[in-house]
């Protein structure tokens, strides 16, 4: 029993450390007037991996991405599809240059991302939770690690 308890404490500790290593929670957000209320993880994958260029209701989707080498970007793609930024870049090179679809629009910082999204009813992006504003709406949250 004691060892089980020790294991649980250790596991809990690892979760805390994991959360800390991975940074804060990322939210997938859209403009507050967007007709979409919620997305499944598969639907988020469909949009960010260029498999569909519309939301499930058929409305056009415009995905935004953070600049290369940002920790939030790395965390987002790791949690979404378990791939590194280099893998994601090569993936998009394949899609773009086979003429299938175009990668998300890159924005320099989360601040700029929130500004861009607040003016784009078709937009969808991921942001660290403390950037959340009342002009945006959360459509997907990653389960706690």
């Amino acid at each position, binding site marked *: 029993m004691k060892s089980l308890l020790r294991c649980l404490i250790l596991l809990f500790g690892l979760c805390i450390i994991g959360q800390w290593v991975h940074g804060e929670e990322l939210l997938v957000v859209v403009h507050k007037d967007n007709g979409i209320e919620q997305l499944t993880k*598969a639907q988020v*994958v*469909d949009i960010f991996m260029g*498999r*569909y*260029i*519309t939301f*499930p209701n*058929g409305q*056009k989707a415009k995905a935004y991405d953070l600049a*290369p*080498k940002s920790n939030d970007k790395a965390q987002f793609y790791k949690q979404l*599809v*378990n*791939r*590194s*930024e*280099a*893998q994601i*870049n*090569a993936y998009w*090179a*394949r899609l*773009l*240059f*086979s*003429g*299938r679809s*175009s990668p998300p629009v890159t924005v320099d910082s989360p601040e700029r991302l929130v500004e861009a999204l607040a003016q784009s009813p078709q937009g969808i992006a991921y942001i660290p939770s403390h950037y959340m504003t009342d002009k945006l709406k959360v459509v997907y949250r990653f389960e706690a690690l």
Partner: protein
Amino acid sequence: MAEADLKVSGFGTLGGIYNDNDTLNFHRAFTLKATDTAWSWKSDSLIGVQLNASLDEKFDAVGQLVLKDRVSDRFNDNIELLFMRYRPTRDWYVRLGRTHAELYMLSEYRNVGYGYLWARPIPEFYAFSSSISQVDGVDVGFSRRVAGGLLDVKLGYGKSNAVFEGLNTQFEIDLEDVWVFTSQLTFEAWSLRLAAAQAEVDSFTFKAIGLVDGLNQVPSNLWPQASTMASDLTPEGQILNYFALGATYDSDSWVFQSEIGYMHSDWSFLQSFYSGYASIGYRFGDATLYGVVAHIENQNPPLYYQAPNLSPEVPPELSSAIGELYAESQLAINLNRVHQSSFSLGVRWDFYPNNTLKFQWDNINIEEGGTALWSHSFTQEIDTQVNLFSINYSFIFSL
């Protein structure tokens, strides 16, 4: 809300390759010139520019120009993509214009070195298919979520033209009624692919094809097999069929990819073959170490036709002309045979976003009479081995 949107992007590779064999000249596709020097910067180097125009929510257009060391000097052949796309609903699209014949996994992005692990698409699998890559026509695609994965199905129809180099000579092929069917099921890390294609040879320009006329002129009572040899060698109306199966796994540290294919043809100049490869890679941070094995081999043994058995009454000039015709035709028939295996080791280093360096070593064993993936001038063939050493710098950019 309509929003016109133009985007310019591009890709390129600067590649150096060292070939340790001085009789077999390497090219990664028959549409590219083979280099006869040990070191070459031409085999893998290329540059591509793409324009994406989003016209409104349902219409968009793509144009792509790729400059490389092509055999053809026609400007039109540098246009890899030029199509309009219409998406009537979320799941369907129709494209009209020039698209890639999507026979195999890399067919659509074989020029984009940044997009794949290796120095180049595996020649055993891609050299033939990359040579007939541009299709002018129409295709229809459809996507749907199925059993937790995404199913993509596409059917294309059109025609194709290409100028080749092989055996140190040029030839040109026109294909019509090109049908390409592809289906792909993509899960989070796995993807499975099945494709089938058919094309009819409309015309083929090659000096050896003059032999067909010669064979057709031989009176059947002198040499009955001449007409069979002629019809087997005649390009027009020959049907080529491709079938391919592929699988990839790409997640976290491991990346795996394999494809097997079969090309069927009754044309004696391009005999049926099997090909395949398997590649495995492991990521260490920004570097991926990989190994590949690949093989290509004709389905049947070489084709031999019975030699003319002419009566002594046939005048000696005619007799020797027919004998020569037979020998040349027999040689031409088995010129395009393939039989080789390769083993490759390499590393891809993603040293900076959108920039990658690759080093690769290929050890290729070629069986006697199976050298058609190479350009060469000898007719006396023996088993041989080639080592290729490659260094490639590939990048992508957007303006």
